[in-house]
């Protein structure tokens, strides 16, 4: 599904590579977790795969397509749930979704039905006509998610989709993502919630200093590591206990 070869990214003025000669293969229908400390390169990798930034070197292919040759096809194939809410605060939930759905070429009743169904599943039907600036963080996260899946993407990228939300909202989001995966959507997500990733992902990769330091199904990784009871143990063993503050 996704083949990444020797992908590197160094930001202008930066001393080090945020992503460095990274190779990775993600299979169709995986729920793939990209885990790592702050500044490890998770968001940069997602941004590269979503064509938001230009790689310094290396290449990747998604479903046999590249941005250079198949830009619009690829954009139609993927969905992105950015870390920011990325919604118009003064528009209602329905207006936001109608607009972003239209950008994928969806229109009319077909789009309205899709929006209503998604709002229903994520428990937001009664807030459909409320403005986004009146929503809580959890509600905004759910609308942010719906805005990215109205066109039934084959691959869905999520950058920390459950950050700052309550447990209830988190459960609704994770269950919804599992449903999407069952229907055939490949999911690539980044998170700091290692327990959530352990339960949710079919495969994870721990990334640090722009490189993948380990990858595989969470259970295999835990079994293979001595004295590890969960992903957090492995994470700390591989990335260390030092703080990763950066500016």
């Amino acid at each position, binding site marked *: 599904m996704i083949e990444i070869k020797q992908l590197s990214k160094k930001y202008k003025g930066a001393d080090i590579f945020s992503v460095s000669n990274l190779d990775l293969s993600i299979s169709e229908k995986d729920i793939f977790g990209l885990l790592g400390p702050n500044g490890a390169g998770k968001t940069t990798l997602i941004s590269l795969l979503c064509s938001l930034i230009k790689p310094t070197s290396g290449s990747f292919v998604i479903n046999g397509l590249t941005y250079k040759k198949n830009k619009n096809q690829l954009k139609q194939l993927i969905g992105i749930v950015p870390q920011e809410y990325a919604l118009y605060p003064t*528009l209602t939930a329905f*207006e936001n979704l*109608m607009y972003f759905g239209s950008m994928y*070429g969806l229109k009319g009743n077909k789009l309205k039905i899709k929006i209503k169904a998604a709002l229903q599943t994520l428990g937001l039907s009664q807030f459909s006509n409320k403005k986004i600036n009146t929503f809580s963080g959890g509600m905004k996260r759910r609308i942010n998610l719906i805005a990215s899946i109205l066109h039934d993407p084959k691959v869905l990228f999520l950058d920390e989709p459950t950050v700052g939300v309550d447990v209830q909202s988190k459960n609704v989001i994770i269950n919804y993502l599992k449903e999407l995966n069952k229907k055939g959507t490949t999911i690539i997500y980044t998170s700091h919630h290692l327990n959530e990733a352990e339960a949710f992902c079919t495969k994870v990769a721990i990334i640090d200093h722009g490189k993948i330091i380990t990858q595989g199904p969470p259970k295999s990784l835990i079994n293979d590591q001595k004295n590890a009871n969960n992903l957090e143990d492995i994470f700390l063993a591989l990335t260390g206990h030092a703080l990763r503050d950066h500016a």
Partner: protein
Amino acid sequence: MHKLLASTYKEFLLLTRDIGGIAILFIMPLVLIVTITIIQDSTFKTVSETKIPILLVDNDKGSVSETIVKGLEESNIFEVIKINIEEDAKNLVFKGKNQLAIVIPENLSSDLENKINQNVEGILNKFGLDEEVIVENQPKKVFLAKEVKLYFDPATQFSFKNSVKNEVDKMISRIETQSIYNAFQKQITDDPSEIIFETENFISFKEILPKNKDENILPNSVQHNVPAWTLFAIFFIIVPLSINIVKEKSQGTFVRLRTNPVSYLTVLGGKTVIYLIVCLIQFMLMLLIGIYLFPAIGLPTLNVSGKFPLLFLVALFAGLAAIGLGLLLGTIAKTQEQSAPFGATFVVILAALGGVWVPVFIMPEFMQTLSKISPMNWGLNAFYDVFLRNSSLLEIVPEITLLFLFFIITTLIAIVYNEKKNAV
């Protein structure tokens, strides 16, 4: 097309949800045009209702000072306030209590008369026409040149100072000429009723105005101000438009749009349609103000009879030029702190270059050249062509073509810049 319509509708919703923003967009230009027109109207009026009070210290108390006072009062611009002591007048003016003081020197009338009589006698003697006995080598009495002093408030504008100086200079020249005629008259004939000289001006001026169907087109403050300030307001659209684009970047929606299968041209297209409609509504409101409000508050009526289609066309293309600039600024700026002050200042610079405040023909040569590349200058010329020069569509084609090209070029630069910046 569907994506463009959706983008346009989204922009419409965003704009209409910001009531304060809409109020500023539509009300402020109207306040601006009313204020400026009221202020500038007195400059254009031949009969002004408000008179400038000037202090007059009359140390002469003769015929010359009488004529000066009469001339000032008849000018209908000044209200003469007589004051006895020069020092008092000077203090009042220099402290800004009054704009101007005129001090007429002692014995101005008698010395002027005697000096002219002396000169006239001298001339007539040369021609042997003087009947009186001439005493050879008798020394002439020396009359020192007289000074009419003018005191101006230091804050007075240069143009006002100049026009007052010219007015006083003209008056004094007239008095001197009249006195010369009188002196000759007295010397040549003893009968004061006998008219020897025609003292009326031989040369006069007649202003030929452009005509519309045999009717003179009389320029007034409204015909000048409405186009100029309408254009200024139209160009101010670059501020809210660039803020709109920068906001999209800061709230993350622009990042989402970049991952959507939609071109930047489509995104900008939606903004262009809505903001162009805003420009045209602004334009219509300003015309309505000129037609209906101005006469109600004592200003001349804006005459748009038969000109509306061409004016609308100019407003349309001027709006496009302004929008192109707004799109470019919004694309390049990273924060609202960059786009808003830059946009506002840049519009003021364009307005100055375009001739909104000071006519282009009195600018320094370098600025005149620079003004030729100001879209506001093209727009203002097109408006003046229609409003004041009675021009046809063909005659405004060059200006509206330039405005359209400006829109195309700025929009293209915005798109290319965005593509380059976000190239993958």
